[in-house]
Each structure stands twice: as C-alpha cells, then as structure tokens.
C-alpha cells in the first residue's frame, strides 16, 4: 500500500481520516518490537527538535523515538542562548535548520507556527504543540493508549474529567473520538465546561456527549477515564479552586468503588490523581506517556518513508 504520509508534514489531527489514524496506530503497534531494542531504519538521518517553548516530556519522547529508529537528533530545548533571542524570526530559524536535517519537530507559543514552517520547507515538519491550537502527537498517543487498553475504541464509554474548557488535550481528543462509535461523558466543574461551539461541533459530527457533574456516577459508567489538570489560575480565588480541586480528586477508594475504570492523564498531574492509585493495574498514565515513543516512531517512519523490520 502506498504511504500517504511520505514527505508530508503533520500539523493537526482534525484533517485526518479514521483510516489514516488507524494506519499510524497499526504501525505504532509494529514499533513496540523496537521501542526498547531499536532498529537501524533511520541510520544517517537527522531530526531537528526546535523547542521555542520548553516541553521536556514531548522533546525527550521525540528524541527517544528518533534514536530508537537508528537516527540522530540535534536542536534546542528552549530559546535561551539561541539566535531566536537575538531576534531571528521563526521563518529564518526553520529555513536554516532545515539545511542540516531530514525532519523537524517544533514547539512554539504562537498558533499556526508549525503550519507556517511547513509551508516554507520541503522537509516534513511535525507539530509538537503550537500555542493553544494543536498538539497532534499527544492526541495520537492518547488514542493509541485507549485502543491498547480497551482492545478497540469502538463500543466503549469514555469519560473526560476535569478542565474541559481550557485543556487543549481533551479538546483535541474529543474531536478525534468523533471518528469512533463511543459514548462520551464530559464531566467537569461548572466553571470549566466544554465551550458551546465545540460541543455543537461534536454533536454535528454524530457524537452525542453527555454533560455530567457527578464524578462517582461518571466513573461508574465509564470503561476509561481521562483526567486533566485543574489549574489554579482559572479560579477567582484559592478557596474556590481548592473546593473544586478536592471534588475532582480521583483516589483508590473512588476507583475501587466504581469498578476500576482505566485511568489516563496527560501529566503532569497535581491533585487530580492521588498517588495511592499508582500501582493499580488500570492506572496507565505512565504507560500513556511511554506510548508516545512507538507512536512517534511510527509517525516519523511514515513521514520519512522508512522501511522498518
């Protein structure tokens, strides 16, 4: 089968079909074999990781993926000490680095930055996060984790819990879930409800999410819960925040009472997940972060059209 991603950039998840998402996940499954011992499929190839905004986990995960594929990585973890601080434009930075490498991963605080870079370059660009807009590999690894944990995505009940208003992760994941036959529960505090236009979009696309407030009931119904961080700065005062944060804490008691649904979280967590659940078999948030490696290996090999295995 010809690889539709060869030579392309990967900027957003919204323009991908279900088949495309599934084909990357299938390839990620094949990569599991190499995620710990590596392969030499990308020998001699270089990836540039340009982090105009720091993100340790995303950067390390991409670097691990490229190195496991047998390639190597150059780049910067933040703009400190780089030509960006001297006032170089994004456009000039990526055009220069593209002369040295075969593929670029970038994270940048402005929305649309990765799309601009991709339009200027003739090598693939992977969006590692552009402002509050897109972080497509996070969504890919989230989907992959759901599929891996539940066997398949279709036919399950998935609850998103916490900040559904500002969290980029749940926004993007809920859109991707429109490709699947799932029951989606949106459980959030009143102040952090999903925005109306997104809710409307999900309904238009055939997903009929249930908006809920009772966390115990949602956990009881769900096969899998995706919790997100509730941020202090979203609240008018500390007391208000603490009240909500406390109500959204998932602990061992609550999980055992509600039939042990699978538990995911994009990390870092604050108080949403009590450490007393960490050793439960269904607590998969660290595995979820780990799944970033085979998923990114799969994506890199698709974009670079590598022969693996």
């Amino acid at each position, binding site marked *: 089968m010809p690889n539709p991603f060869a030579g392309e950039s990967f900027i957003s998840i919204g323009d991908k079909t279900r088949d495309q998402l599934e084909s990357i996940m299938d390839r990620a499954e094949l990569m599991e074999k190499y995620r710990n011992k590596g392969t030499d499929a990308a020998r001699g190839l270089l990836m540039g990781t340009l982090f105009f905004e720091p993100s340790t986990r995303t950067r390390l995960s991409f670097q691990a993926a490229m190195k496991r594929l047998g390639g190597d990585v150059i780049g910067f973890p933040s703009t400190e000490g780089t030509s960006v601080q001297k006032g170089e434009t*994004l456009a000039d930075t990526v055009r220069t680095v593209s002369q040295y490498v075969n593929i670029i991963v970038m994270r940048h605080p402005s*929305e*649309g930055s990765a*799309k*601009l870079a991709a339009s200027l370059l003739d090598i693939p660009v992977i969006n590692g996060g552009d402002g509050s807009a897109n972080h497509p590999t996070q969504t890919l690894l989230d989907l992959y984790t759901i599929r891996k944990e539940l066997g398949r995505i279709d036919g399950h009940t998935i609850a998103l819990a916490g900040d559904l208003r500002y969290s980029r992760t749940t926004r993007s994941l809920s859109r991707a879930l429109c490709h699947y036959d799932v029951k989606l529960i949106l459980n959030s505090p009143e102040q952090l409800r999903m925005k109306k236009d997104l809710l409307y979009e999900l309904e238009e696309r055939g997903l009929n999410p249930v908006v809920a407030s009772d966390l115990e009931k949602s956990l009881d119904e769900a096969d899998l819960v995706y919790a997100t961080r509730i941020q202090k700065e979203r609240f008018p005062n500390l007391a208000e925040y603490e009240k909500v944060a406390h109500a959204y804490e998932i602990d061992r008691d609550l999980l055992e009472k509600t039939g042990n649904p699978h538990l995911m979280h994009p990390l870092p967590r604050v108080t949403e997940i009590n450490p007393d659940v960490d050793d439960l078999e269904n607590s998969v948030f660290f595995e979820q972060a780990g799944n970033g490696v085979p998923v990114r290996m799969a994506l890199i090999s698709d974009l670079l059209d590598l022969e693996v295995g």
Partner: protein
Amino acid sequence: MNPEKKKMKITRIENGTAIDHIAPGSALKVLELLDLKDEKKNSITIAIRVDSNEMGKKDLLKIEDKFLTPTESAMIALISPDATINIIKSFEVTEKHPVELPEELTGIFDCSNPNCITNQEREPVESKFKVTDKDPLTVRCLYCDNLMEEEQITHQLIRSK
C-alpha cells in the same frame, strides 16, 4: 418626484466607478477602506440612505478616476455583499457586476487572535482566511483556526487599513 428626477440629484462622473446597492449606512465604512490618495482627481459623491427599488434604502458611492483592485472589491463584498460595481468610461457604464466574495482572503485584514503566527511581527506571512459561511458571514483563519464573524471582520478591516 419621479424616480428619474431623484437620480439626477447625484452627480454624473466621466470616468471612474460607481458602487451601487451598498447596505444602507455602510458607505462611509466602504470609503474608509478604499485607497483614494489622489486628492486632485478622486472627487467623491456619497449618497446615504437613498430610496432603492430593490432594497428600500441603499447607499451609493461615485468616485472619479478610481478603479477598484481585487482586494478592494473583496473588502466591499465583506462589508456589503449585495453591492454592485459600475465601471464608467466617458459617462457610459461600460461594465456592471456584483461584488464577489472570494473563497480565500489573503492579506486583507488581520486575524483577531493576537497569538496567531500571522500577527507576529517580522514573520514573512500574510493573514489567510477561508470563507466558511456567507450568511451570516464567517471566516476561519487558515493558520490558527480562529473563527471570525461579521462584526469582528469589519473591526479588523478598519484596524488593518
């Protein structure tokens, strides 16, 4: 007064453009957007809220020695989608067509999302929008996906000018 006589109140122009059927009350906005640097030549006639057979009321602009650029035409379509353009040469209308809203709008106004890459100083990129709906007018930024509606677009058009 018969309609013929009413028309006579508006000065004829020898060469230039008459923008007719402008949404009532929008002529000044349209005027603000046009490039009319040539103070000697560009004499302008404005009619605001005059009677119109088709629209009840309308605005009308006649500008001597002015021919619209495609960008200007698109800007008028954004503010007043029913406007018609009459090109006049030697007192005769030689061409008449409705304004047309292109499917994509490039570099006409700024994205309203301050964090959009197209708003970052010195980056070599023009704003670019796709028209997603004509009624009510809605456009989507092709870089940051920001949706903008009529009021915001008009605001940005005048700001970006």
